[in-house]
C-alpha cells in the first residue's frame, strides 16, 4: 500500500518549487488559498517513519499525520533538492534522521519562530 504525507505550500515554499515538474499538480483547499504537495510513501518507508517518530500515525485517508515539524521541514527541503516526490526525497531525509529526531525531541518546548 502507498501512503502519503501532505506538505503545506505557502508563497515562500511555492517559490522554491514553481519550476519543478510537479508544481502544477498541487492539491487545492479553500478555493486555492491553501496548496498541498503530496509525497508518496511506500509501506516499508512508512514503517521506518512511524518507528522513528512514535507520535506519528496513519489517518483514515492513508496520510501520515502528527509528524514533527523538523521532519516536515526536512522533507520539503529534500523534495526541492532531489526534485522528487518519492523515495529519493525520503532517503535524503533519512540521511540526517538522527539530527531530525533530536530536533523533534525539543519541539515540545521550542520551535524556532518564523
Amino acid at each position, binding site marked *: 500500500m502507498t501512503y502519503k504525507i501532505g506538505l*503545506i505550500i*505557502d*508563497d515562500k*515554499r511555492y517559490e522554491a518549487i514553481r519550476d519543478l515538474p510537479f508544481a502544477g499538480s498541487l492539491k*487545492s*483547499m*479553500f*478555493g*486555492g*488559498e*491553501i496548496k498541498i504537495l503530496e509525497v508518496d510513501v511506500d509501506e516499508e518507508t512508512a514503517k521506518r517513519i512511524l518507528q522513528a517518530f512514535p507520535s506519528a500515525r496513519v489517518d483514515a485517508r492513508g496520510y501520515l499525520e502528527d509528524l514533527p*515539524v523538523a521532519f*516536515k*521541514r526536512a522533507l520539503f527541503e529534500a523534495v526541492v533538492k532531489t526534485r522528487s516526490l518519492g523515495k529519493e526525497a525520503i532517503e535524503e531525509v533519512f540521511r540526517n534522521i538522527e539530527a531530525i529526531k533530536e530536533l523533534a525531541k525539543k519541539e*515540545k*518546548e*521550542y*520551535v*524556532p*519562530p*518564523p
Partner: protein
Amino acid sequence: MPVIEPHGGRLVNNVVEDADKARTYWELPTRLEIKPTLGPDGAPIRNPYREVMSIAYGFFSPLEGFMPWNEVESVLKERRLLGGWLFPFPIVLDVTEEELKASGARQGDDLLLTLKGRPFAVLKVEEVYKLPDRRELADAVFGTPERNGEVVKKRFDEKHPGWLIYRSLKPLALAGKVAVVNPPRFREPYSRFWTPPAASRRLIESKGWKVVVAHQTRNVPHIGHEMLMKRAMFVAGGDRPGDAVLVNAIIGAKRPGDYVDEAILEGHEALRLGGYFHQERHVVSFTLWDMRYGNPLESILHGIIRQNMGATHHMFGRDHAATGDYYDPYSTQYLWTRGLPSYGINAPPHEVDKGLKIRPVNMGEFAYCPKCGEYTYLGMSYGDVKEAPLCGHTPERISGSFLRGIIIEGLRPPKVVMRPEVYDVIVKWWRAYGYPYVTEKYLKLKEEALEVEL
C-alpha cells in the same frame, strides 16, 4: 435606554478602595495563603485567587463569597443560589486540615487571604465544613449519562479538566463573603483589557450601545470566529450605530496545546486595530476563571458574567465551552431553547423566575465554500437533523488542528482562514515564549507569575 440589569438586581463590588481602611485588614492574625489546586501530576489546574477576583469585582453577581454547604446543595439540586438566583457551579474555597489549623481561622473570624505572601483579600468565615467524596461531588456538578441523558453522552473522568478540579479539591471548605483589600495590578498586556463589570457598564453607557452581543473566547480568532461574531450581531437585531460586540476571554489555568493568553487577547484586539471591527463597535476584555468546560452549565455562567458586564445578548456556538465528547455538541443550544430539567432547570435560563435577562443567540457553524467564495452557514445538528450547508456546494471547515499544523510549521495561514494581523500576534508571542502554544514551561511561568502583582 439603561444598561441591562445585573443578575440578581445589584452589582457586587467588594473591593476596599480606601487604602487606610484596607490596611487595617493587612495585620490580621488569622491568615491563609491561597494555593492552586493541583492535578494528579502536580500541575496547577485552578487558582482560587481568580474566583476571589471574579466575586469581588462583580463578575459573578449576586454571588458575594464562597458558598456554604447548603448553598452548594442548592446549586447541585436546581442550580440556584440560596436567594433563588440561577447559578451553575459550586464555588468552594477548599483547604486541608493542616492549612486550616495553621491559619487559626474559626467560624466568625475575619481571615486574611494572602497571595504570593502579600495581603490580598478578607474572608468573613461563616462556616467551615467537610466536603463529601469529591468524585461524587464532581459527578453531581457535571452530571452523568444516566441522570442527565438529554445532554451528557459519556461519563466524566480525569481527562475532563473541570471534573478534575472538583475531584481534586481538598477535604475541607471555608465559606463566607470575600472582599479584596489590596487591589492587584495587572501585568501587561492584561492591564489593557481589564474591564470589570462596573467599568464595562460605564463604557457601554458612554458609547450609547443598545445591543451588545457577547462573544466567549479561549482562542485566537480565525475567520470562522469572526463570522460568528458578526452574524450574531445581525441575528440580535443590532441597530447601527448603537450596537457592538463585547469579546470576553476566559483567562485561567491552561493546558499544553492551548494558545497563550496574551495572544488570545491581542489576537482579538488585532481584529479591531486591523479595521475588521469598527473602533467604536468592538471591545476586548477578560474574566479570571479556571474554565470548568461544562458546556451548557458553563454557558449559564457566561451569561451571568456578560449580563453583569452589560451585554444584552450572548452568542453560543457549537461545542460551547466544551472539551472531548462528554456532552452533545449542541447541549448549550438545547439548554437555551428547552431548559435542562434533569439539572433542575425546567425552561431556558432567560425564561425562568430569577433567571437571566441576557438573550441567547444560538448559532451553528460556518464553513468556507470555494465555489461561492464566501463563508456559508451549516446550521446545527440535533437528533435526526444534521448540519447542512446553505449553499449547494461542498464547503470546507476550518479545523483547529489543521490550522495549528499550518502555524507550527511556521507558515502564514491564508487570508480566508486567519487575518494576517492576528497571525502576527501569534508570532509575536511565539518569539516571547519560544513556542506558539502553551508548553509545560509556560504553565510553570504563568503559575509563578499569575496575571497580577501585589
